[in-house]
Structures are given as structure tokens and as C-alpha cells.
């Protein structure tokens, strides 16, 4: 389209020149993004790697004195400390619990939506969209109040249902186990719509013919789902699953806000909140914790990155 050259050698050099000029303009267009990412992600990232091997503290920052290189001291200190392994275990536990419930709930609701008539389906969609749109912090505040010790709806309802005073001023957030229960409800409530809608869209792409053929061959409803529908939507669910794992590994807002409503922070911390609560001071150690989080997250995300790259190539 551009090349209108007549002589063969001339065309070649022109093509080469054009490619080079294309390359230059492309990189020129990328400069602002690269500069911003380098400044706000690259620089702190490299600083974090470096500082995680030093004993850099707020004192060094104020006095301007250099920190000492301490090799892996920060990492051994963290990994052998009393609370970090517990926090990591709790983070993974909550991740597994919430992810499982979200995936199962989301898929079931998606299947349900295919069974509903139009009006009812619209109603369910509107409800899910509303739940999806609510900011996590607001959701936590509202759910936190529903489970409030004194004026919460749950305690009132349980009291009215059982007709006793057992649930009077029951502190749901004080016990780490019920804290996790409330947290799970908040997270699952907020995340199910995404899974449900994505799975629903995936179900729409399941080939009708295959389902009909299976039906003619005598497959029952469950069998059809398991051997036709499920394999067809598995790639979609795989992507969603990875995203859920990542998001549920780095919960912050819900945990933090719920803690400030009456949870015991030391017994309910998850990784990012734990890091936040280290506060400003031991930059070497907080960097090391950050490094551990990044490594864990990238290891989990690797599959997802490859999936997205495949998408780009096609």
C-alpha cells in the first residue's frame, strides 16, 4: 500500500527504512507510559529488592546515613518469627475458602440463570450487578453493621428466632473464627457476580448441537453438564479461578475495615494488612515482606500471564 517503488533494490531499502521509522514512532508513543511505570513501579521495586537485603530504617532516612548490607537476615527473621507463618497460613486458608465458595456459587448461579425466564433472569442480573458495583469498603461497613454486636440485624434476628437472650450482644468479630466467617460472607458476596456473569457468558458459547446430540444419545442432565458443558467452559473458568486466587490472596480493604470495627488485628491479619501494620520504621524488613508477597503472587499469576499472552498472539 505504501510501497510504490519501481526498482527492486530501492524497494528493499525503503521497506527497511520504513520499518525503522515505524519502530522509532512506536517507541516514541511508549515513552510516557514507560517513564511513569519506571518511576512509580520500577524504581520502588528495585529499591524494595535492594532494601530487603539491608537494615535500612527510618533513622537512616532521617540522618541520611547508609544502611548495612545484611544478606538474608531480614528473610530469616521474618520466616522464623512467630507471626509471619501464621499470617501466611491464614491468608492461604481464607483464599482457599473464599475462592471455593465464590467459584461454586458463581457457577451455580450462572446455570440457574440459563434456566430462568427472561423477566426473572433480568431481576437476578440487576441484583448481582448492584452487589458487584458496591465499593469493597462500603460493603464492609454495611455488612459490619449487619453483624454489629449491639445493634446488628443478625443478633436481633437470631434472638427473635430462638426466642432467647443467647445472641444478645454476641460479638461476631471478636472471635477470629466468626471474624473469618463474616469476612468470607463479605468477600463472597462481592465476588460472586463477576464469576456468575463470566460463567453465564461462557455457557452461552457451549455448542447447542453437542448438547442436543448428547440428549439424543440418552445422556441425562447431569451427564450432559459434566461431559459437554463443563469441558466447553473450562478454559473460561480456569482464567476466572486464577484471578479469584490472586484477588483473594491480597485482600486488604475488607480485612482492615472489619478489624477497625472490632476484630483483634493480631489474630486476623492477612498478608497485605500484616505488612501495613508493620508501619513506617523497619524498611528493610517491610521490603523483605513485600518481596515475599511479590514472589508468591507472581508464582500464582504465571499461568494467567501466559493465558493473556496467548490471547494477544491470536
Amino acid at each position, binding site marked *: 500500500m505504501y510501497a510504490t517503488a519501481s526498482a527492486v533494490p530501492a524497494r528493499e531499502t525503503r521497506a527497511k527504512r520504513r520499518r525503522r521509522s515505524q519502530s522509532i514512532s512506536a517507541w516514541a508513543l*511508549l515513552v510516557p507510559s514507560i517513564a511513569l511505570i519506571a518511576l512509580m513501579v520500577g524504581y520502588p521495586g528495585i529499591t524494595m529488592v535492594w532494601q530487603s537485603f539491608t537494615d535500612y530504617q527510618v533513622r537512616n532516612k532521617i540522618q541520611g546515613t547508609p544502611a548495612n548490607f545484611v544478606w538474608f537476615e531480614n528473610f530469616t527473621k521474618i520466616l522464623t518469627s512467630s507471626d509471619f507463618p501464621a499470617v501466611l497460613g491464614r491468608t492461604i486458608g481464607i483464599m482457599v475458602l473464599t475462592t471455593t465458595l465464590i467459584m461454586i456459587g458463581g457457577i451455580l448461579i450462572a446455570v440457574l440463570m440459563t434456566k430462568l425466564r427472561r423477566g*426473572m433472569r433480568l431481576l437476578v442480573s440487576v441484583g448481582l450487578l448492584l452487589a458487584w458495583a458496591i465499593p469493597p469498603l462500603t460493603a464492609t*461497613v454495611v455488612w459490619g453493621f449487619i453483624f454489629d454486636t*449491639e445493634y446488628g440485624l443478625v443478633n*436481633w434476628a437470631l434472638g427473635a428466632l430462638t426466642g432467647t437472650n443467647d445472641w444478645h450482644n454476641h460479638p461476631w468479630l471478636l472471635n477470629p473464627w466468626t471474624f473469618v466467617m463474616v469476612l468470607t460472607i463479605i468477600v463472597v458476596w462481592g465476588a460472586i457476580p463477576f464469576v456468575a456473569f463470566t460463567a453465564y457468558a461462557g455457557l452461552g458459547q457451549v455448542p447447542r448441537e453437542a448438547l442436543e446430540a448428547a440428549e439424543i444419545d440418552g445422556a441425562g442432565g447431569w451427564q450432559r453438564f459434566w461431559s459437554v458443558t463443563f469441558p466447553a467452559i473450562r478454559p473460561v473458568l480456569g482464567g476466572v479461578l486464577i484471578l479469584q486466587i490472586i484477588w483473594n490472596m491480597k485482600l486488604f480493604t475488607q480485612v482492615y475495615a472489619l478489624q477497625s*470495627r472490632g476484630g483483634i488485628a493480631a489474630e486476623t491479619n492477612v498478608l*497485605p494488612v500484616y505488612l*501495613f501494620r508493620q508501619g513506617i520504621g523497619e*524498611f528493610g524488613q517491610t*521490603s523483605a515482606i513485600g518481596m515475599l508477597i511479590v514472589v508468591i503472587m507472581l508464582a500464582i499469576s504465571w499461568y494467567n500471564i501466559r493465558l493473556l499472552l496467548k490471547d494477544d498472539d491470536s
Partner: protein
Amino acid sequence: MTALQTRALVMPTRRVRRSPASPVRRPANRVLFNIIGAVVFVCSVFPVYWMVNLSFTPGNQIISRDPSVVPREPTLRNFVTAWTRPAAPGQTDFPNALTTSLVIVIVVVIAALFVAFLASIALARFAFRGRHAFIVGILVVQMIPGEAMMFTVYNLVDDMRLMNTLMGLALVHIASVIPFTIWALRGFVAGVPIELEEAAQIDGCSKPQAFWKVTFPLLAPGLVSTGIFAFMQSWNEFTMALLLMKGSNLTLPTWLNSFQSATEATNYGAVMAGSTLICIPVVIFFLIVQGRMTGGLVSGAVKG
């Protein structure tokens, strides 16, 4: 909503044409499914409804431990309190936090869209060495949880003398939304067939002219929905705002957090009113873009 979440959602796609499996015929099953559907609806909506309900309920009725389905004596006093009272002694009030949030969000949306738009043109319209490396880099940056670096970012912002300033938090937000805005816009630009531009060039346009006059107008919906996602992310962002902003510079989420921890028990109505106010713009924007939200992940994965 996190960067990741939004990124997954915003990927543009052809609309999935679907013909849902036929609704169930047997009446007994239909009733059952309708009941389950109603339960799902109620569970999804209930907390939102309860928030709005309490925001109109007078404080003395909230603490009377006798909840009612609709406020018996609806009042706007909670909204007035939420609007006028400082979050905590020495901290900002709602209008101030609203201004702070709006300024930051507008700066973030404009800057992120502009920068990401340039990058997305490069990725979607140019073949150049390093393209693949750049995309991998974007995805890796996207996967790094920003929270992990919170204290080094804190130090960086401090070193730039931007601590507790709108500019400082806006920079942090811009950097955190840029990877996904690039990724999303790249898809939108690639979705406009290059043949359209080529046709315009044959008709005598220069290359930039062809892009500007043919492709750009077709990108408007993509820019709007990507912008709305950047908006929602910055509007809802909590962690870094909590770390970087103090006193009179609180954003809305940090205002709400202070407000709910500081106000005494009698003011739950005001907390709910504040929550409701914060939700309104997000819900509106969310409903505008919801049509584009699913499907991206689907088509990409199914195609694989």
C-alpha cells in the same frame, strides 16, 4: 476494585451472541428455579437495601434494637450529619473529601487515558522490535501487587516532597491503572479494522489524518468505558490513600473509614448515609459500562 479485577473485565470483545438454553418446561421445576432466583436476588440486594434503609432511619430508632423494613419516621438528618461533621477531630469533612477525591480521580482519568492511548496505538498499529517484551512487561507489572511495595512507594512520594498531597496520590493511582488501561485500549484499537484507515488513505488522507478521522471516533466507546474503570479504581482505592493522606486531605474511602471508627454508637445512620453517598456515582457508572464487562475473558479463553 483492584487493577487486576478491572483489567480482566474491560477487555473489549465482540459481543457474545448467545442463545440461552431453553428455559425449563416442567412447571414444578420452574417454580423451584424461580424461588432460588428470588433468593439470589434478595441476598444480593439486601445489604444495599439495608444501607439505604438505615440512612433514612433516625438514630434513636437504630439503637432501639427494633429494626423495621422501612424507616418509620424517614429523616434526612443522617445525610446532613454525614455531610457536615468532620470525620474525626482535626480531619476533613465530606465535601472536602469529595473535592479531594474528584480532583484526584479527574487527574488520574485524563492522564492515564492519554498516556495509555499513545501506548495502545503503538501496540495495536505498529510492528516493532520489543513489542512482545513490552506486553510481557505490562502484564508482569499488572500482576505485582502494589500493596507489597507500599513503604518504598511511601518513601518515594516522600522524597519527591509529595507526601499528603493530591499530586502524590494521583501519581500512585495513575501508575497503578496504566497497565490495565493500556491493555484494554490496545484491544479497542486493534478492534477497529486497519482496512478502514487504508481506505481513507487511498482517498487521500495522510496516515495520522486517517487515524484521527476514521479510527479515533470509533474508539470513543472504548475510551469512555476504560476511563470509567480508571475512575472507579481511583475512587475506591483505599490502601495507599490510607498510607499517604492525612488530616484535611482524606479521600472519600479514608474519610468513611475515619468516620465509621470515630463516630459514637448513636451515629450509625450517618455512617450509612455517608456510605450511600459514596456508592451513588460508582453504581451509576458501573451500570453504564456493565454491558462490556463480561465476555472479554470468555472469548479470549475459549478461542485458545
